[in-house]
Every structure is written in C-alpha cells, then in structure tokens.
C-alpha cells in the first residue's frame, strides 16, 4: 500500500465508485454483529477484579475442565495430524476407484451439524453401541469417559490437517524426490529428510486449527462426554452451566480465558507462517 506523497489518504484514488459505501457498510455490519457483542463480553468479564477472576479460574471444577479440554484437544489434534497426513498422501499420490468420493467425505465434519455427530457418536460408542460393545467386554469405556471426548474432537478436527497438507503436497516438486533417490536415499529416508520438512509447516497449521476448533467445540462433545463435574466436563459446557445459573460474570471470565488461549494459538501460527515465508497475503 503506497500512500500518495503529501496528504494522508485512507485509500488510493480509483475510478470505481462505492469505496465509501462498501467500507462503511462493512464496518457497520461488522461492528453490529461482531465487535460490539465481543466488547460486551470483555466488559462483563472486567466487572470482576483480578483476584476474583483468578478465584473463578482456579476453582477445582473450572481448572479440571480447562485441563480436560486442552488435553483432549491436543490428543485429538495430534491423531488428526498423523492421519491427516496419511489421508492427504492417499488423495494426492494414489489413484484408486472412488478417490473423489473419499475426497468429498473428508469435508463431512464441516458439513454435518455438530449435534448430529454428537448423538451418532454417542450411540456408536455407548456400551451397547456397535463400537462400544466391542470394547465393553475388556472393561474399556469409551462413551461417557475421556476417550469419548477425544473421539468427538477427532471427528470435528479431521478436515483441517488434510486440507492444509493436501495443497502443499500437490505442489511439491517430484524432482526433489528423484534427486534424493539418485543420491542413494531410500523411500523412508527421502520422506523423513526431504518431504516431511516441506510438509511440516502445513501440518503445524492444521494442528493449530484443529486444536483451536476443538477447545471451543460443544455440540459433538456434550452427548458423548457424560458431563460429570471435574471428570468429563468441558469448558464450553461449564460456560453454559454458569449461564443457566445466571452467573454471567463467572461465565464471561471463563469465556475470555478460553478465547485468549485460542486467539494466541492462532496468532502464534500466523507469525510462524510469516517467518517461514508462506504468508501470501496481498494488499
């Protein structure tokens, strides 16, 4: 963006009309729907002083919910990173019947309403469900226990890693692999030393997106979680419970804390990408 010499101008002159109207409407709408409501949240949370806010966050029930939410989200995002890479590899490198259907199915978790995923996974994983009944004889409980939460979060985050790794793998130059092969590297060494380093930034982005999404996820988790306070209660549910008890301040403090974490993760990833020179923003 180059400013014209001399006077400060908001935008560069253009023959096209509609800049003022477009920007005005965009900002008006954005303020009304996003910015004013978000500032209401921050103001509500700041009604509590630091000490009381800390007391809310440090209470055993809230602390347990944060620990469970972040741990389960991290495990789910990690599983998704590994299988996301496998699925991206499958879709980019192999040709097989039904590949297009598989490609489309990867996006199902984006398209399927979370409540539907929630009830369906709960029914599958319960002790009498198709999957749950296979594990029940061994005393392994999936639904209404932490593994169920992880499974729901895996479902929700599944597309992120695939969709960030896929384009990078698609653009990866095969000549590099051929060069590695002529230099004597076998397939495994080529993968670890040549391909993986190129995919790692995309995998990291996918991991962060899946993680951030998982920390806020509600619909798909609450049906399968069991929701026992301190044991299988996630942060978004705790916010809902506080709201139902009309403890709006407590709910706001928890919400701001959880937003702060997810925003800082996304910001860290943005910075990292910029440093890796992958940021292709314009304007």
């Amino acid at each position, binding site marked *: *963006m180059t400013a014209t010499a001399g006077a400060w101008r908001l*935008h560069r002159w253009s023959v*096209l*009309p509609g*800049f003022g109207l*477009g*920007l005005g409407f*965009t900002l008006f709408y*954005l303020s009304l*729907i*996003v910015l004013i*409501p*978000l500032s*209401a*949240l921050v103001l509500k949370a700041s009604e509590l002083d630091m000490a009381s806010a800390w007391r809310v966050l440090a209470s055993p029930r809230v602390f347990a919910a944060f620990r469970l939410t972040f741990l389960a989200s991290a495990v789910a995002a990690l599983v998704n990173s590994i*299988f996301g890479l*496998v*699925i991206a590899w*499958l879709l980019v*490198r*192999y*040709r*097989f019947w039904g590949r*297009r259907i*598989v490609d*489309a*199915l*990867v996006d199902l*978790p*984006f*398209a*399927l*309403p979370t*409540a*539907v995923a929630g*009830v*369906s996974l709960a*029914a*599958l994983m319960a002790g009498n*469900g*198709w999957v749950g009944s296979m594990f029940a004889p061994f005393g392994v409980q999936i639904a209404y226990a932490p593994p169920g939460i992880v499974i729901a979060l*895996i*479902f929700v985050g*599944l597309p992120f890693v695939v969709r960030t790794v896929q384009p990078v793998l*698609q653009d990866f130059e*095969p000549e590099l*692999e051929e060069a590695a*092969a002529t230099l004597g590297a076998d*397939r495994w060494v080529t993968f670890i030393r040549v391909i993986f380093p190129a995919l790692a930034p995309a995998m990291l982005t996918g991991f962060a997106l899946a993680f*951030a999404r998982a920390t806020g996820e*509600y619909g798909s988790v609450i049906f399968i979680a069991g929701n026992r306070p301190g044991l299988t209660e996630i942060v*978004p*549910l705790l*916010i809902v419970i506080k709201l139902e008890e009309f403890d709006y301040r407590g709910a*706001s403090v928890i919400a701001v804390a*959880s*937003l702060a974490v997810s925003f800082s993760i*996304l910001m860290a990833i943005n910075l990292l990408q910029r440093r890796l020179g992958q940021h292709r*923003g314009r*304007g």
Partner: protein
Amino acid sequence: MAGDSAAAAPPERLALRDPRWARWAIFVGGIGFLALFVVLPLAAVAVEALRKGFGAYFSDLGDPDTISAIHMTLTVAAIAVPLNCVFGVAAAWTIGKFAFRGKTLLLSLIDVPFSVSPVISGMLFLLLFGLQGWFGHWLREHHWKIVFALPGLVLATMFVTLPFVARELIPLMQEQGADEEEAARMLGAGGLRVFWSVTLPNIKWALLYGVLLCNARAMGEFGAVSVVSGHIRGLTNTLPLQVDILYNEYNMVAAFATASLLAGLALVTLVVKSFLEWRYADQLALTRR
C-alpha cells in the same frame, strides 16, 4: 484442488513409488480412519432412524414440534444467509477492488467468528439483550424480546456464519483485481452496471459456493443457538435443538429421524460443493477454509 489433479495425473515416476507394504498401510490406514470416523456415524444415523421401520420414521417427522423446528430452521437461515451474503459481497468489493489502509486488520476482523466457540458466540447476545444485559431492561420496558425468541436465534446464527461468503469472495476478487471494472467504467458504465455486468458474472460460482457453506452452517448450528433459544418447544427450537431435546428424552428413533434430515442436508451440501469444485475449479477461490 481435487478437480485438476486427475487431468494432471503424472506418468509413472519410479522414484516416487512407495514400497508395496507402505502403499497398503497408507490405503488401509486412510480409508479405515475415514470409515470409522465419518462413514460409520453417518450409517448409524440412518440405522437408528429406521430402527422401527419407515412408518415410525415418517410419523416421527410429522410430529408438530418437529415440523415447527423445520419452520424455525428455514426462517432463521432465510434471514441470516441473505444478510451475510450482502455483507460478504460488500466486504469483498471493498477489499478486492480498492487499496486502503487497515486492510489486513479488516481481513482478520472478518475471520474472528471462526475462532470463537459457538457457545461464546451465543453468550455474547445474552450479555447484550438478556434480562441482565446492557439493553435487557430497556427491551423489557418496551416489551421487545430478542433472546429466547427468533431475533436472538438469527443474531447468533449471523455471528457464526458471518465469514463464509466473505472468505470465499475476498481471495477471488483480490486475484481478479479491478482492471475489468475500471475498463467498463472508462467506457461509460455506471457503478451498478459495472457490478451487475462485470463483477457479478466473474464471482457468481464462488458466491454460490459461499452461500452453500453459509447455509449448511446456519441450518446446522447448535451451540450458539442453544444458548440464546431458551429451548421453548414448538416456539424457539431449530432442528439441531430438537435433536437434543428428543435425545435427552430417550426418544431415540425420533431424535435420529430428525438428525437424518440434517445429515441429508449435509450430504446434499457435499455433493453440490464437490460438483462446484469439479466444474468451476478455476472460478472458485484458491483457498479453502
């Protein structure tokens, strides 16, 4: 992305061949993972919905509360999606066709709803318009209801789905630049004429793509509307909330029958989306969300 890969299928490059065991492991691992986490839940919805046969399935769908939930879902989407569509076009026009200060900031502000938990999104409107909220008292004096009523559901849905159309159009319109529009303008076309005859034809498929995703999310949103709805049966229940209520009443067949409608919507969305990606790959934004 998926569209052009088949056409560009490379001739066999021997160095790129994975060992046989690796090929099998990747194939079985990838397909197995998707089967377990994506196909199985879908199948479970269908099976559970039809557990007592088609008769029970259709009579559950004919339940007055479910019918009114369908109405509510359609009404909310019919208001929220067009508004976000107008916003998306305005934002993309401004960002794509003009150079101005603060563009990067504006871009990140538009993305904010994607990183806010659905529950928190709904809560924002409770804080503004709920009884204890900023405008709660004033609203009550004037007998206006926003939360626990249709306006609250629409606002929460608008918040959650705000980025979809904008996110689809902005990268595309940035890439297309303003050359064609400027030429049309120089040839004497007015502003609206430029938009209708030059810009819109260039972005129509991307616009449809964005609307499709926006609509799928608007109709399927659960967390945000759950917080603002108050769960009043037959009045403020959308389809996902109806699934929740029926499930918690252990009315499994009805819950899954209702869920099957939403699953059907998701499948239709995926089919249309894949078709657009395949047919109009070159006219869609390069970035997927």
